[in-house]
């Protein structure tokens, strides 16, 4: 079967997010012999980003440069993506399940009157059809889902499908496409950076999360230090957010972010069912808590019963020794 799959790339601060490469790997899985077309929209560094997509498996890349694409808006990007889809008629479209992916893809799917499988964590091929696995009920259950008519259209959760090795010997055409991007009704006036200075929670391989046990805003400092040593991100339980120890943007759980890092260190978190829903599918879970009866120990791979303010500094020192 000759397929033509479009991967919508996503950049942050001028370089591609890793989930873009994971999306290319997903497209390759859907049809290894098919052509993978990358798409980059923006107004800077497009050539470099396109080249990176090629190194990670794209066969050719289309770039759309326009001042109205400097910051993502659904209307601006929607116009660019729809124009490329109309011209290329891909059999599938894959993108990361990120803030941008979640915003843009339902708009495109609605315009095309197609199905869209969002937040896929795995993919398998059966009789030439892509079958996606996705968590439902915040990871308390999973479903396998397929598209029954129209193009194969999915967003993939960061950090679950492995990207291909970067290969500088790969080559592919990079073409820039001129188009008019206008009639934008939603304008971004300002972007206030709060979270992206550190490692992004949704793509982090390691997460150190704090609960009510951290006791104060200052109590998060050792957790941040531990996360820094591990190259990870800091998260929180709803309890810590409700107590105003940290911003809601860090919340992990049923009404927060659902994460699947390689290592999740739960510090001073008791393990309410709503919190477990957001993190229980992490590959390895470590719990540090004073209360030996805390529910978190029931799902942790490793646990230390103790005062976090003693344990975390020791842990930082010990990890520094091996890093």
């Amino acid at each position, binding site marked *: 079967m000759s397929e033509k799959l479009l991967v919508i790339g996503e950049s942050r601060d001028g370089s591609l997010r890793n989930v873009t490469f994971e999306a290319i790997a997903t497209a390759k899985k859907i049809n290894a012999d098919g052509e993978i077309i990358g798409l980059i929209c923006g107004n800077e560094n497009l050539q470099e980003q396109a080249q990176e997509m090629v190194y990670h498996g794209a066969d050719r890349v289309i770039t759309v440069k326009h001042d109205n694409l400097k910051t993502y808006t*659904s209307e601006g990007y929607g116009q660019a993506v729809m124009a490329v889809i109309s011209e290329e008629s891909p059999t599938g479209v894959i993108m990361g399940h990120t*803030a941008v992916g*979640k915003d843009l893809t*339902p*708009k495109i*799917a*609605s315009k095309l*009157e*197609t*199905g*869209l499988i*969002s937040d896929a964590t795995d993919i398998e091929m059966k009789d030439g059809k892509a079958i996606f696995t*996705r968590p439902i*009920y*915040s990871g*308390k*259950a*999973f*479903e*396998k*889902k*397929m*598209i029954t008519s*129209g193009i194969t259209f999915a967003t993939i959760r960061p950090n679950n499908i492995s990207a291909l090795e970067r290969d500088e010997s790969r080559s592919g055409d990079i073409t820039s496409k001129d188009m008019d991007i206008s009639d934008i009704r*939603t*304008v*971004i*006036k300002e*972007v*206030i*950076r*709060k*979270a*992206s200075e550190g490692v992004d929670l949704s793509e982090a391989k*390691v997460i150190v999360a704090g609960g009510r046990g951290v006791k104060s805003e200052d109590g998060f400092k050792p957790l941040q230090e531990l996360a820094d040593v591990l190259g990870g991100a800091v998260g929180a339980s709803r309890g810590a957010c409700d107590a105003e120890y940290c911003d809601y*943007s*860090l919340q992990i759980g*049923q*009404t*927060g972010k659902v994460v699947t890092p390689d*290592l999740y260190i739960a510090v001073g978190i008791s393990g309410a*069912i*709503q919190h477990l829903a957001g993190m*229980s*599918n992490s*590959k*390895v879970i*470590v719990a540090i808590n004073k209360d030996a009866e805390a529910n978190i*120990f029931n*799902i*942790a791979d*490793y*646990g*230390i*019963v*103790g005062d976090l303010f*003693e*344990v975390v500094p020791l*842990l930082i020192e*010990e990890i520094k020794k091996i890093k």
Partner: protein
Amino acid sequence: MNIYVLLKKTFDTEEKITVTNGQIEEDGAEFIINPYDEYAVEEAIKQRDEHGGEVTVVTVGDGDSEKQLRTALAMGADKAVLINTEDDLEEGDQFTTAKILEAYFDEKDVDLILAGNVAIDEASGQVGPRLAERLGIPFVTTITSLKIDGETVNIDKDVEGDVEKVETSLPLLVTCQQGLNDPRYPSLPGIMKAKKKPLEELEIDDLDLDEDELETKTKTIDIYLPPEKEAGRVLEGELDDQVKELVSLLKTEAKVL
């Protein structure tokens, strides 16, 4: 202002999930208003109180959704609409829900539609943006602040923790994120009043839609629970030694360091 809220009933967040014959077991489960939709209801009420007009809460679902619609009315919404698909649709997906809503909103005079940014059950987050696209109005997802001044709307949008200051205009669809407001609890007088507020029930036949237009575009093949996670090892001994052992286990056994 004509303000609409898209509302969905979901499992209570405390519910344990069980699967029978590849289906989520719903018997005996407690249902609530999807938590993100509660922010939408609250914001709709606040905007109406500030700017005038009325709030209509709309659900596509089964007859049991009436309970959650009554709760929204008790919070302060003015009217509710239940588009009951129970007898007409064997299965639905985000495409069909958006299509039904499109037919419902067709020729309605809409200023503002609010929805939750995601439902905590199927977690697709698609219906709001899909509907806005069908209606040809702008949409902004994951909002944490909404200020309306005439036709101009200023919004704070949460983008993975960063804040985007967005300016747009009515008519508009927004999806609501945690931090937007603190949803009120229905008061006793509110609950009494809600019983008398209008709750209209519609079926597919009442909308200008053919059933063959509502064929799903996706299909769920299987639903299953993740493998039960066994409790791991709680380390013992002096704290120093426990920490050393933990780091060693993470490096050699779990291979995550």
